[in-house]
């Protein structure tokens, strides 16, 4: 009898272990088969420059799509108010692709064939963007995605750009910052080995550390859903590094920082844009654990830049919502496209692509140029936490 119970219990143990393994949510598109994209297009008139847009405005990732699309529309409105581009008004035609790759390609074909757009600002999430990029690469249509971070997107063709930084970039940037600004000689890394984002940034930091003269003294890992980091932190503490780089999401950061404090770690803790929001996940009585930590972000509302403050004001007036990073990147992406068309002086695809490749742009997310892979090289906002509040430090460029 006893044996049977234990056998059954063991089975239950195995079962729930495997259940926790697949409880992670993904942000990718749901298979929505409904066809027909609803357009936000106004009636086409003769002398306008048509720029297409794709974004998930409904569905599970619509929260990103709506914000990005709003940012783009704000940029178009502002450009049109100040006289448009090449003496013509811009007409922004965007379709809802519901976060689905097939829908996105259908909508793309509609933009190119029916609406005859000269350029594309989109898509938003990585999976549909990759699909659209394949099609756009064949057509040679100038395309910039505001927010798709998958490395393969811009590798698809010479005509495909993006406005957001890719994950490894942040690791390189923070390695440079810790060496040059914080004077670090030694560093430890603590990351979630079961998360692509965390792993990718950690790898980039490790590689970049060698070139800026930082010695990595400890490399500790953990798994998704872990809450006890004391063993890893004890190992890190015994090496006493100048900085501890922790490229993970905010909920884990809250736990790690508190345990680091319990163990008396005095090294500077550093992170990347996954830290955004960490103050909401830590109680006031523990907030001192985050004092003097640094992380980077592509956007901060704390920025002292007048352009950013104006944008926040206009965005709130237009949409009655706080702009987030997606809205800001959408705004920057559209402005980069407009700027490239102006520089090219024509609506010819090749001219626009050439202009964009050589673009030197001053956007809300910093000074931007493109590298040879058409990924942006830009300054990131460095943010520190002091007395339970985010504090903007400076824009930094490696």
């Amino acid at each position: 009898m006893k044996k049977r119970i234990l056998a059954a219990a063991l089975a239950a143990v195995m079962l729930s272990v495997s259940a926790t393994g697949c409880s992670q949510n993904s942000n990718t598109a749901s298979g929505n088969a409904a066809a027909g994209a609803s357009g936000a297009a106004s009636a086409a008139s003769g002398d306008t420059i048509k720029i297409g847009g794709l974004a998930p405005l409904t569905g599970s990732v619509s929260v990103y799509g709506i914000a990005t699309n709003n940012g783009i529309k704000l940029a178009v409105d502002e450009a049109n108010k100040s006289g448009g581009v090449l003496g013509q008004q811009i007409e922004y035609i965007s379709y809802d692709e519901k976060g689905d790759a097939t829908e996105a390609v259908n909508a793309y074909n509609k933009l190119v064939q029916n609406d005859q757009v000269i350029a594309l600002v989109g898509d938003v999430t990585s999976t549909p963007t990759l699909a659209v990029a394949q099609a756009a690469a064949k057509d040679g249509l100038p395309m910039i995605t505001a927010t798709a971070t998958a490395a393969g997107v811009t590798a698809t063709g010479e005509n495909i750009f993006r406005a957001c930084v890719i994950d490894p970039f942040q690791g390189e940037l923070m390695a440079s910052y810790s060496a040059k600004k914080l004077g670090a000689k030694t560093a430890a890394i603590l990351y979630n080995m079961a998360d692509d984002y965390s792993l990718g940034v950690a790898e980039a930091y490790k590689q970049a550390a060698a070139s800026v003269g930082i010695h990595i003294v400890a490399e500790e890992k953990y798994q998704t859903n872990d809450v006890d980091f004391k063993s890893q932190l004890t190992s890190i503490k015994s090496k006493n590094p100048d900085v501890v780089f922790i490229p993970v999401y905010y909920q884990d950061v809250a736990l790690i920082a508190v345990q680091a404090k319990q163990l008396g770690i005095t090294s500077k803790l550093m992170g990347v844009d996954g830290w955004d929001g960490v103050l909401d996940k830590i109680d006031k009585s523990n907030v001192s654990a985050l004092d003097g930590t640094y992380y980077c972000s592509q956007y901060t509302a704390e920025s002292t830049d007048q352009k950013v403050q104006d944008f926040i004001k206009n965005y709130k007036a237009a949409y009655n919502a706080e702009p987030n990073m997606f809205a800001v990147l959408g705004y920057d992406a559209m402005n980069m496209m407009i700027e490239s068309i102006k520089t090219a002086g024509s609506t010819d695809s090749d001219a626009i692509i050439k202009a964009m490749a050589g673009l030197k742009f001053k956007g809300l997310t910093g000074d931007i140029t493109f590298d040879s892979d058409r990924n942006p090289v830009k300054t990131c906002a460095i943010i520190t936490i002091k007395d339970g509040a985010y504090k903007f430090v400076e824009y930094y460029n490696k």
Partner: protein
Amino acid sequence: MDFLSQIINGLGIGSIYALVALGYSMVYGIVQLINFAHGDIIMVGAYVTYVVLVVAGAPLWVAILASILFCTFAGVLIERVAYRRLLNMNAPRISLLITAIGVSIFLENLSQLLFTSSGKSMPNLFPNQLLGLGEVQISSISLINISTSVILMVLLQILVNKTKIGKAMRATSEDADAAKLMGINTNTTIAFTFGIGSALAAVGAVLYCSAYPMITPYMGGMLGLKAFVAAVLGGIGSIPGAMLGGYLIGIAESLTKAAGGSQITDAVVFGILIIILLFKPAGLLGKNVQEKV
């Protein structure tokens, strides 16, 4: 000295496993039921502490007391609603086990409904200081965890071995029918055992919150499983065994992580379970009781 620090880290988390394991062990000892809902009692305790301390703004001792009382009540209620009929009808043990898993899922979903699945942050509960002990520095939080668990185990041993209700518990565990004939109210005794086990889980919850100040509806799942492994390792049914098992599992985890094997920590824990079941099914301190035919 790193090694000693890691042992203390292990004892810190091990104390929490041990307190939860005590509940598994006592319940199994008395009704041969593996109460899989027990891990989720920790989660209930943590959320009660959160509500009383953060939402209502009461002082810490009120929150701890409320958490212990609520969990005791919840433990007794679960026994009354979910298990008692099955126990009295002499239902197959597998039905009880499945019911326990059902209760566990119910509790998790209920708290998700009430508090959403996003984690809640807990305030700092106990003073956090580093105490130097030669070259080894010990966090006061770990020290509080370890001493609380030891004190509670001693109290529990006294309760079981020296008091009248303890005698009733031992009698029910040995032979429920004979105990009934001797005038022992076995239903009350079983309910009492569930209550004590849940109260210990509530204390475990408070210790958990002070060490890891983030609570989620699913926090009890893995914690409960590991505590169950601890109970089996030490010898399910044995109080000192549950404690020993908890500490050993905690240390095994801590040393595995320290050796750079974070990815196999859980594998090590469940590997220990498999090895124990193979070579010493009764556990380290468990007695091999002959089944009556």
